[in-house]
């Protein structure tokens, strides 16, 4: 995964400003499950929902597509699947240009887009049969078995004959996932698949995604909750107001956020001087607290230097960024809607 370095993990800076370390990335569409080039969507009202993103999902990855609600994730997914036509840019799915290759590619792609949607007066099973009947590549001889298997995988066998109208939100979500699994897939696009599921259901979906991924299925899974995907993702992309502000492996993203040292002292001014002498750039003094990005310095030596300089250290801590902090730093917000 070499799409873009994660170093300037600053919101708004986006694609253009990032320096790429190492050799220039080679974009070989055959080796990627999803590639977009400058993909953008401006709605008729003039709102720029997606501002030219270069998404790159390698084969076999579990790609966490993160971002607050309204950051352009769903519009991007709709463009990927050919539901919405981009106003600029292009993209490929499984090595084929879209939307020209839709008829060849989409049978190999399972998708859950912006929540499940089914006919309320049909049973869960009848709804799946309807989708299967619409698929020209589906073999009618195996339809029953494939539908049974899909229902079984999401734990809906017992409720298969119930009308969709009577399903709970969690059951609906499961049926949506079952629909994505009607055929063997090479790519799964799951938009907020754990929405409405209880913790147990969320765990089950996570396990299911891991199972599928271990079989070599590429998964693009969007979420506004980092914690839901952190454990299963190999790669992440972070959206913020229509821009892809970071993309890379989970480790790359973690490393992009530097650890900080925090010092509590009765002589903060002296601490600032001592830190500055070490080459660090301390932040503003807040009461008895001084913090600074660690950079290349070793924390042990920083503490020794502080003590050596006569700074009365009460507490010395090393804050290593969790992904949550990275996420918040990138998007500038937690779970708020970005307009």
């Amino acid at each position, binding site marked *: 995964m070499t799409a873009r370095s994660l170093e300037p993990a600053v919101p708004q800076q986006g694609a253009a400003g990032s320096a790429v370390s190492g050799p220039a990335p080679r974009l070989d569409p055959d080796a990627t499950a999803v590639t977009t080039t400058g993909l953008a969507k401006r709605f008729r009202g003039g709102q720029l929902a997606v501002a030219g993103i270069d998404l790159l999902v390698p084969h076999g990855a579990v790609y966490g597509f993160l971002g607050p609600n309204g950051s352009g994730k769903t519009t991007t997914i*709709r463009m990927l*699947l*050919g*539901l*919405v*036509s981009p106003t600029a840019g292009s993209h490929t799915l499984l090595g084929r240009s879209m939307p020209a290759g*839709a*008829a*060849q590619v*989409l*049978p*190999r*792609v399972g*998708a859950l*887009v*912006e*929540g499940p*949607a*089914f*006919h*309320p*007066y049909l049973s869960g099973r009848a709804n799946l*049969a*309807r*989708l299967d*009947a*619409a*698929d*020209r*590549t*589906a*073999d*009618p001889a195996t339809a029953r078995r494939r539908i049974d*298997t899909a229902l*079984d*995988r999401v734990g809906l066998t017992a409720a298969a004959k119930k009308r969709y109208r009577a399903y709970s939100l969690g059951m609906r979500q499961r049926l949506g996932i079952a*629909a994505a699994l009607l055929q*063997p*897939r*090479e790519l799964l696009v799951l938009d907020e698949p754990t929405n409405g599921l209880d913790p147990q259901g969320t765990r089950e979906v996570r396990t299911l995604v891991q*199972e599928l991924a271990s*079989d*070599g*299925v590429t998964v693009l899974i969007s979420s506004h909750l980092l914690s839901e995907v952190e454990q299963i993702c190999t790669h992440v992309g972070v959206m913020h107001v229509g821009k892809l502000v970071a993309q890379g492996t989970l480790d790359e993203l973690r490393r992009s956020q530097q650890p900080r040292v925090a010092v509590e002292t009765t002589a903060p001014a002296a601490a600032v001087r001592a830190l500055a002498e070490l080459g660090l750039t301390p932040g503003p003094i807040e009461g008895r607290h001084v913090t600074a990005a660690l950079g290349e310095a070793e924390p042990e030596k920083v503490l020794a230097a502080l003590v050596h300089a006569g700074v009365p250290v009460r507490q010395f801590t090393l804050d290593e960024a969790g992904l949550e902090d990275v996420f918040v730093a990138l998007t500038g917000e937690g779970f708020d809607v970005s307009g």
Partner: protein
Amino acid sequence: MSAAEMSAVATAPAVRRPPVVSTRFLRSELGMVFGRRRNLAILAVLAGIPIVIAIAIKVTAPVNDGRDGPPFLFSITANGIFVALTALTVVLPLFLPLAVAVVAGESVAGEASLGTLRYLLVVPVSRTRLLAVKYAGALAYCLAAAFIVAVVGTLMGALLFPIGPVTLLSGTQVSYGAGLARLLLVALYIAAMMAGLAAIGLFVSTLTESAIAAMATTAVLAVLSQVLNQVPQLDWLAPWLFSHYWLDYGDLLRDPIATGAVTKGLAATAAYVLIFGSLAWSRITTKDVSS
């Protein structure tokens, strides 16, 4: 699923080559159209109309005192086949267009409002195929609606009234069998007229995500067309209205059949189907599906 099965799934992603012609989606659509309770209820109401007409006439035996009534009404007591023709005449202006407006208006907009449209498209169903299947479903409903009235009317007529040689509008008598053949032609002609309305409804349905709005718009257009057709000041417009030729099925009951107006009616309907089918196609193949 066992591990062996799972890896078999993953290593065999070869997509089955689609058959040249597959009727599965069409059959599924017909199942949806004719499986919906609402659509069946509408057919039941349509079937009720010849029943009501037959019973009412049997009970009251109306006399032709020159007052207005549907054509054929006073022939019923002489021949049961006229129950079917009377019922078709009664349902043509409003009930039949309403029924067609419901199914055609819902076709695309119904899927859009439920959100199932996006899932059909990512299956994938090509947008052209979706439109074709939706229109085929609406056509089947047009046929079913016209035929249920004709068939129930014929049965009620045979049950309550004498049947026998039929006197046509031109005064000639033909056998009961030949009369039934004429009735079949009438039902087909009326279904064809409804196909024009269904094409308009299909187009309206691609414009909105509200099925109710599409149904109402289509029904209003059907009524509006008939009202405008009645306004003498708009005589110049009348031949262009899609409902202008609806009532010309009477020409099929002459001997020999007067083909002039009927042919024009079929041609006009074909033009309407072509125009609104193309509009619907250009709309659905370019629109962003954001529902």
